[in-house]
């Protein structure tokens, strides 16, 4: 979508914005608020426990993820690590398709235009930084993690990975301009 096309979309205006978001004089308490009504967005008490650097727990998480995948392989008996919604089929959101950001980079291999900026500071010029979201018409939270690491395959062989993982969560307008509350991952 071109920037000029954005004006054609419904402008829901201030109802989507936090009262404190305009000034940015202090930490905004929240952005999108529809998630509150779903009672599934922010769980600070749980988060605090998760974020505490607990290497034992994180190692357990690694093992459990593997166990979860094994469960997928062997049976539908899902006893994986995660205690929340585990599949999109169980998720209360609608998953209405979002729009890509207008910007991005030309595809060097002739495929579709790449509506995405590389990871980097949000105040840097694109494409190395700048807008971190890959979807537009969003009012919410984002996270970007560009990391490298190691792991093993099923034969015990060490392999090396690089990952650019992101989330976008909050209120967004779908391709028809209708508002939704949802979460998206980039990987």
């Amino acid at each position, binding site marked *: 979508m071109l920037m000029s096309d954005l004006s054609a979309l419904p402008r829901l205006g201030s109802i989507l*914005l936090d009262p404190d978001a305009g000034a940015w004089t202090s930490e905004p308490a929240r952005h999108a608020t529809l998630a509150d009504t779903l009672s599934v967005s922010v769980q600070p008490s749980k988060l605090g426990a998760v974020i505490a650097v607990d290497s034992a727990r994180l190692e357990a998480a690694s093992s459990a993820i593997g166990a979860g995948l094994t469960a997928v392989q062997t049976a539908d008996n899902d006893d994986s690590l995660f205690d929340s919604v585990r599949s999109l089929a169980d998720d209360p959101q609608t998953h209405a398709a979002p729009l*890509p950001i207008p910007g991005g980079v030309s595809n060097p*291999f002739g495929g579709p235009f790449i509506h995405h900026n590389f990871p980097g500071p*949000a105040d840097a010029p694109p494409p190395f930084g700048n807008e971190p979201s890959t979807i537009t018409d969003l009012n919410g939270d984002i*996270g970007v993690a560009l990391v490298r690491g190691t792991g093993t395959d099923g034969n015990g062989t060490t392999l*090396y990975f690089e990952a650019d*993982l992101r989330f976008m969560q909050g209120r967004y307008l779908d391709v028809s301009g209708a508002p939704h509350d*949802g979460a998206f991952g980039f990987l």
Partner: protein
Amino acid sequence: VDIYPSQSDLENKTNQLHDFNPGFGDPVNANGDRTFWTTAIPICSVNVDFQAGKAEMRVSHLDIEDYFNLPNSLKDGQSIPATVAFDVVWGGDVTRRLDVRDPAHGFEGRFKEQPATVVFAAKEDGFTFVSNPANTTRNLFAEIGRERNGSLFV
């Protein structure tokens, strides 16, 4: 998520073995614009406490594709089904706080640059991968933010 057989291959982007991503989305307009490697995830798989500088994205059993290498992926070439799980945790010292208002690119927000760790696992026919513990992650760049863009950027 790109997987390589060696550190040097990763550094040089050679001999890539796997490229896990959701592919391009469906065209959204007459120009054929499509979302890039972006897929819906359960809304409760993301937890954010922005004020505290903490966030987590924890997803299991996400069905995506393995395109095996970047050129094939960007050409939207052939792929096979794969299932991935990952746990990304943002936290620790905030190295930079910034407020950005960028009318030229249609977004504004408040951002905190701070490290993240990742645990990642993948499975497909004939292949499995489980990353080492999250505290072995090498962070290259990470941030959390609170933003609005597009027609919601006013």
